[in-house]
């Protein structure tokens, strides 16, 4: 097993990791805000909104992400009549599935964060004369994000690993190149290298979130 060989297989895998990372950032940057919108909907006094959000969360959490991804890649285009307008690039379809799926999880995480905030915080804000907007933006949301941070971190790490599901819709990413190399060369090393690359990515994330947690420790 030469270093040269390791280097040869690592190159394409790093190339594939770019797709992994791209999916990661697209999914996390869209699903967090979307998840928060769903949290607000669940909390909304407009009952139909809360109802829609709850059903949405139930469906997205209650079915496999893989199913959702296949649904967007291969399911939508075969719907009669409108199907032909729903054909998407497979990577785009996968991104959509990831965003919609993770938004449901983030919605629940943020809802949990809101539940953890004592009602005395709302009352203190009210007697000081703060309106609903200021109470939310200045008192509640900063605390909610702080409380949610460990769970968000956890979810982000899961997301890195879930990107490997792209394999199922044949979008070439990290795992795809590892599998190709294993089949071609009859060696286990590409899987080891892939594992190390995943670990490197989750390590960076772990440090990043630890830093955020320290920054928002409030003591």
């Amino acid at each position: 097993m030469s270093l040269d060989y390791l280097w040869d297989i690592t190159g394409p895998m790093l190339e594939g990791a770019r797709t992994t990372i791209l999916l990661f950032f697209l999914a996390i940057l869209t699903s967090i805000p979307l998840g928060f919108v769903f949290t607000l909907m669940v909390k909304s006094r407009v009952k139909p909104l809360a109802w829609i959000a709850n059903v949405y969360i139930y469906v997205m959490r209650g079915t496999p992400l893989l199913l959702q991804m296949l649904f967007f890649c291969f399911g939508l285009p075969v719907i009669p009549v409108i199907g032909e307008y729903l054909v998407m690039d497979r990577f785009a379809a996968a991104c959509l599935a990831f965003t919609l799926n993770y938004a449901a999880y983030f919605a629940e995480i943020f809802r949990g964060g809101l539940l953890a905030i004592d009602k005395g915080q709302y009352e203190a804000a009210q007697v000081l004369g703060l309106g609903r907007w200021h109470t939310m933006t200045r008192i509640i949301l900063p605390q909610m994000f702080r409380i949610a941070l460990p769970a968000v971190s956890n979810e982000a790490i899961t997301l890195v690993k879930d990107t490997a599901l792209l394999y199922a819709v044949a979008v070439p990413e990290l795992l795809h190149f590892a599998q190709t190399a294993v089949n071609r060369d009859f060696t286990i090393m590409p899987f080891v290298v892939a594992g190390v690359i995943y670990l490197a990515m989750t390590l960076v994330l772990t440090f990043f979130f630890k830093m955020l947690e320290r920054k928002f420790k409030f003591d």
Partner: protein
Amino acid sequence: MTNNAIIEVTNMRKSFGKLEVLKDVSFRIAPSEVVAVIGPSGSGKSTMLRSLAHLEEVNGGSIRIGNEELVHNGVYPSGGKIKEITSRMGMVFQHFNLFPHLTVRANLELAPKLMKKYSAEEIRSKASSLLEKVGLQDKGDVYPSNLSGGQKQRVAIARALMMSPEIMLFDEPTSALDPELTGEVLQVMRQLADEQMTMIVVTHEMSFAREVADRVMFMADGEFIESGTPEQLFGSPQHERTKAFLNRVL
């Protein structure tokens, strides 16, 4: 005490579902008066105080603050009007309710800044002088989690005073504190009383009620049973229930 009362509550009623918590509560508070409210647990003291601050909406009766009615025969005015009326009152809670993500100074400055009540410069100097007043001038940059209970409650009092209220409502401000920390909070409240602040203090601290209050009101089962000067109420209570309660707590 005639109609110059700064607070006048008439026939206030409040229920939570089937549970009638306040039954026909009426009282008046004169400007600069310090009133201690005592009574058994569950008698409705907090609910009474929270209704004044509009943290609860009553089901009937009227509350007048100054010349304006927060609620008239169970009917509330618009939200803006309610805010304007309740802004004349500050409230201090048993569990402090400081904002944990803000420093002590930011806790004080947040509301006046958002409300643009004063200029930034005035807000800074007001915060500094109030921190000094409660003896915490060196704690401005500290987060609440690093304070003792007594210090937290003093910050909460200073935070309420930032909005220059005419009336201060206290709901058991020392009940969550270790006994050795109650003194520092009561000291600040005593000072406020000396400065002619109108105060309603729900308390279990009978010695505070005795020494600082102009008047003590005894509440039981959602009604004020009797009220009088500390000498009257503690010295010669008229009602059996008052006597029974005082026997238990004194």
